[in-house]
């Protein structure tokens, strides 16, 4: 079996793509959930919410650190999820590839914009 395992008879198994996506989807989700809780706690406790308090939450150095990590996690998470959707419903290979490329463009663009917003504070 193993010495003829190439060419058109090649067994395409064992690349662990499934496990990698499954795990990264959960790790990024946990990071985003934790960030959400941190943000909600800061919003709930404190004086009346206005621009100054809202902006000061995001301008703390540790929040910038956390926000950047979460922006990256979100883009990664959305990539895995959207890729699953395209793979499930879009069968023509060319169209699927085009949509996957657009997804990456969309996510990288949004992530860059979000980082720009956070880092000029």
């Amino acid at each position, binding site marked *: 079996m193993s010495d003829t395992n190439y060419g058109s008879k090649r067994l395409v198994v064992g690349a662990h793509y499934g496990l990698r996506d499954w795990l990264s989807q*959960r790790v990024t*989700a*946990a990071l985003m*959930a934790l960030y*959400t809780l941190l943000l909600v706690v800061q919003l709930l406790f404190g004086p009346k919410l*206005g*621009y100054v308090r*809202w*902006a000061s939450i*995001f301008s703390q150095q540790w929040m910038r650190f956390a926000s950047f990590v979460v922006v990256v996690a979100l883009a990664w998470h*959305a990539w895995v*999820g*959207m890729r699953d*959707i395209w793979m*499930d*419903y879009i069968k023509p290979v060319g169209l699927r590839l085009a949509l996957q490329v657009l*997804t990456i463009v*969309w*996510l990288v*663009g*949004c992530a860059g*914009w*979000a980082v720009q*917003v*956070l880092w*000029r*504070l």
Partner: protein
Amino acid sequence: MADEQRPRPVFRNIHVTDIVAYRLPPAGWVSILHRISGALLFVLLPFLVWLLDVSLTSEISYERFTNAFIAGVGFMPAFLIKLVVFALIWAYLHHFIAGVRHLWMDATHSVSQSQGHLSALITLGSSLLLTLVLGAKLFGLY
């Protein structure tokens, strides 16, 4: 050699058009809504970043942010913006709670039929309830 001629099996996913035809159990609703809410958040991601942008950049832009919910922005009336934000609130909450349900099932192996049924109902109920509470605030009911 003969097995090369055999057509590859096709495993169908539940298509969007099937949703109306299938009678889904609560866990099925949580699952397809998890996917729909995720796609909605993905599509409206630039709107969310725009909200972050105008709310954070300066006090003047913050004014534009709050005004979007009072007088609207450009061709978008305030009511429409509130409606979109309302949909996003639901999408975020459903996606969040359904995701926590996934993590909880992974961690505790709580995958019996009755546990899945109950946690699906809790997911649907709590996300809708929280959406209504926050939505009431959004539309100025309290």
